[in-house]
C-alpha cells in the first residue's frame, strides 16, 4: 500500500536538527549529542559561527523592537526555532503587552517545546508547518484566530530561507505570504550568504548541513533583495545584520564577516 502524502513522518532525533544546532550556537542546552557534534564540526570550520548566530538573533531582537515602535502589534514568525533566549513574544510583549505572535516551525521538537513555553499565553500560538506550504500557514485556524489580517502584521522570516533551495521557489513563497498583508505591514528577513567567506569555508558548511534535516542554500545580496519585492526598504536597507540599527557603534566592527544579510521592508 502506498502511503498518501498527508501521512505524517515520524520523529528522527538521530539526525542533527538545524533548530537545535542554532540553540547550541547561542549557548543553549536544548540540544542533543548529534546536534552538538554537527555544530562543533561547523565551529571547527568557522570558529565565529556562534558569533554569527548571536548577531542574527540580535538582529531579530532589534527588528522586533523597531516594529513595535512602528506600531505593529501582530507578528507572524516563520522558522521561529527552539524558543531559547529572546523570543519574539518576549521582546514584543515586554514593549507592548498587547502584542500577538504566531510562531511557525517545521521542526516537531521545536514546536513541542514552543508549545510548552507558550502554554498559558493566549496571545501566542505555535503551528507546525513547512514554509513551503504558505497557504496552509495562512489558512491555519489557530493562526486565523489570533492574527487579524485587516491590521498590519510583521512577517518575520529570519534565518530560514537559506534552508529553502531555489527549486522550492522561495520568492514565490514570500509573495504568497505577503498576499493577505495590508499596507503598514512589514517583512523582516535575514538569510545566510556566502559573501565575505572563503570557498573552503562555504563548502565545509554546506557539507556539514548536508547531514542535517535542512541542507543549506546560500544566497548573495542581490538574490536576497528579491525577497523584498513589493516592500519598501526601511533604512539602511539590506545590510550585514550587525549594521542594521546597531545598539552601539562598536557592534558594527567586522560586520562583513557576519554571513547573515538582513533588512526590514514596509508594505505601502
Amino acid at each position, binding site marked *: *500500500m502506498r*502511503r*498518501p502524502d*498527508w*501521512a*505524517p*513522518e*515520524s*520523529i528522527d*532525533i538521530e539526525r542533527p536538527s538545524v533548530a*537545535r544546532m542554532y540553540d547550541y550556537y*547561542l*549557548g*543553549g*542546552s*536544548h*540540544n*542533543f549529542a548529534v546536534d552538538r557534534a554537527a555544530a562543533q564540526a561547523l565551529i571547527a570550520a568557522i570558529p565565529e559561527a*556562534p*558569533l554569527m*548566530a*548571536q548577531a542574527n*538573533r*540580535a538582529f531579530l*531582537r532589534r527588528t522586533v523592537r523597531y516594529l513595535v515602535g512602528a506600531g505593529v502589534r501582530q507578528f507572524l514568525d516563520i522558522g521561529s526555532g*527552539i524558543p*531559547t*533566549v*529572546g523570543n519574539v513574544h*518576549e*521582546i514584543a510583549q515586554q514593549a507592548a503587552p498587547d502584542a500577538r505572535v504566531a510562531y511557525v516551525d517545521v521542526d*516537531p*521538537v*521545536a*514546536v*513541542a*517545546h514552543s*508549545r*510548552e513555553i507558550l502554554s498559558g499565553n493566549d496571545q501566542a500560538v505555535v503551528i507546525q508547518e513547512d514554509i513551503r506550504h504558505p497557504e496552509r500557514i495562512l489558512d491555519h485556524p489557530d493562526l486565523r484566530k489570533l492574527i487579524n489580517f485587516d491590521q498590519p502584521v510583521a512577517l518575520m522570516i529570519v534565518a530560514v530561507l537559506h534552508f529553502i533551495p531555489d527549486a522550492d521557489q522561495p520568492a514565490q513563497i514570500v509573495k504568497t505570504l505577503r498576499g493577505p498583508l495590508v499596507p503598514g505591514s512589514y517583512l523582516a528577513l535575514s538569510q545566510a550568504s556566502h559573501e565575505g567567506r572563503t570557498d573552503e569555508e562555504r563548502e565545509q558548511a554546506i557539507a556539514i548541513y548536508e547531514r542535517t534535516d535542512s541542507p543549506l542554500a546560500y544566497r548573495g545580496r542581490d538574490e536576497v533583495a528579491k525577497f523584498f519585492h513589493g516592500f519598501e526598504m526601511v533604512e539602511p536597507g539590506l545590510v550585514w545584520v550587525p549594521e542594521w540599527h546597531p*545598539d*552601539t557603534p*562598536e*557592534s558594527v566592527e567586522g560586520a562583513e564577516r557576519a554571513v547573515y544579510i538582513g533588512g526590514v521592508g514596509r508594505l505601502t
Partner: protein
Amino acid sequence: MKSQHGGPLAGRVGYATFARAWAKAITGTSYMPVTQAELEAFLEGLTVRLVDALFAEPFSLRRGYQIGADLVAAHIASAEGLGRTIEVIDLRLLRDLGLSGDDMRDRMARVLGTVAIGYARALRDRTLDEQESIRRAALVAREQAEHALRESEARFRHQATHDPLTDLPNRTLFTERLDAVFGRQGTAGRRLGLCFVDLDGFKMVNDTLGHHVGDLLLVSVADRLRRALGTHLVARMGGDEFVILVEDTTCTDDVLKVADAALAAITEPSIVDGHELRVGASIGIVERPVEGTSPREVMRDADITLHWAKTAGKGRWALFDSARNQRELTRYALSAAMPAALDRGEFCLDYQPLVSLTNGALLGVEALVRWRHPQLGVLRPDHFIGLAEETGLIVRLGSWVLAEACRQARRWADVSPKAPFVSVNLAVRQVREPELVDEVTALLQEHSLPPDRLQLEITESAMMSTADESVGALRSLANLGVRVAIDDFGTGYSNLAYLSKLPVCELKVAGSFVEGLRAPAADPASLTDERILATLVSLAHTLDLTVTAEGVETANQADRLRAIGCDAAQGWHFGRPSHPSDVEALL
C-alpha cells in the same frame, strides 16, 4: 555608596567604567537578549553588589553565590562568560573603583570563589533543566507523530476499505470479512448467508436524470440499507451492486428475512435532488454451511442466483438451488461442446415410420437427430435442439441433418422403388436462411433424388412467425416438388384461412389430440377430441391436404383415426425411431 568597611568611596564614573569593561569582556560568550547599554546597566548593579560582598563583615558566602547565579539568569551563561568575568574582576575592579585595603587579596579570592561556585551551580542547573525540557519536547513530539501516524493509518485504512461515495465497506473489506468467516477456528456446524443485491433500472436513472442524481440515489439506498440491516455487513461492490454478509445463520429463513428487509428498504421512495425516485432490486441469495464451500464458490453462486432473480422478472429475490445450477451447468457444457461434436461426427439420425392408414404401406420416415455423447450416452433432440437454436448452431446442424437424410433416402431408393420419403424437421432459423432453396436443390441434384422423396416439416408456430420471404422460399421448394408439411398442427393458433395460402401438402396433427383417442370412445372428452380431429381431417381434405396423426400408440387409436378418414399415422404402434438398417429391412 558607603562601604561598611569605611573603605574609600568610589565615584559613579568608576562603576560605569568597570561595568563597560566587564560587558565588553563577556560580549559574544553567549547570546544575551539585551542592548549593550542594558547589559552595562545590569553589570553596574552587580558591581555594586560585588563591592558590598568584598567588604561585608563577616564575610558572606551567599552574596557571591547570588551574584554568580544572577549572571547565569541574565543569560551570561557559558564557560567563557565565567572565565572572562573572573579575569576582569580580578584585574580591574579594585583599580577602576580606586579600592584598597590590607587583606584585599584574600577578600578578592574569597569573593571570586563564591561567585564562581554560584555561577557554576546555576549553569549546571540551567543545563540540566534545558536538557530535560528538550527531551520532554522530543518525547511529546514523538508521541504526537505516532498518534498522527496511527490516525492517518486508520484514515488510510478506512479509505482503502470503504467506498468513497457511500462510505459503505468496499469489496476489499467485504472480501476480508468473508475470508475471515472461513479462516476462523471451528467452522464445523456454522452457516453463512450472502445476498447479492443489484438495483433494477438504475441505468435508466443515470441515463435520464444524470450521474449526479444516480450517485445521490446510491447514497440514499446505501443509507437505507445501513439503517435496515444494522449489524450485517453491507458492502458496495461497485456500480449499483451491493452485497450483504449474514454471518452465523441458523437456517435459510434467517437470510431470507434479511433479503426481504433489504428489498423493503430499497423500494422505499426517496426524494433525490427534487425527484421522487423509487427503485427496485433483485437479490441472489446463498445460505449454506461454511464447511464444504469456499468464499469464491459462495460469491459465484450468489452471482448466478442474482441472474435468476433478474430473469425471473426482477424486484424479487431468488435462492440458490444446486440442482438447477447443475442443470444449467450441464446445458452450458453441452452447448459449448456441440460445435466440436458436430465436427467429430457425434450426431446421427434415427428414422420413424409414417404409415398409411388405408393400406398399412410405409409412406415415409421422419428423420430424428441423436447425439452420441461420449460421456452422457445417446441424447435425444429435446436435450440439445433448444441449445443449438440459442447459439445459432442449429443452422449448421440442420444442414447436416438435411444432407444426411437425403443421402439415406438415395440409398433406400436404390434398394427399392417403393422406398419411403424422408421427412426432415426445419428450424425457423433454417427457413429464414436465404440459401435454403439452393441448398435443397443442390442436395436433390447431388443424390439424384426425386423431389417428392423429401418432405420438410415446419412447426405451425414457426410457419406463422416466418416472414413473407420465407414463405416464398417454401413455395419455391414446393414448386420443385418437395413435400412441405406442417408439424405439430393444433398446438398453435391454427389459422386455417392462412393455411390455404401456404404451399403445404400435409398436416401433422399433434400427439396431444391423438392422446385423447386412447380413452374409451364413450368418454365425453375423448369424443370431443375425436370430433375436433374429424373436423380437422375433413377441412384438410377440402384444402387438398393429407393428414398424418402423430403419437399413435395403440391399435384402438389407429382404428378410430382410420374411421375418421385420417390418411397416415406415426407412433410407437407403427414403429419406434430406429437405425436406418431397420428401415431397410422393411423394404
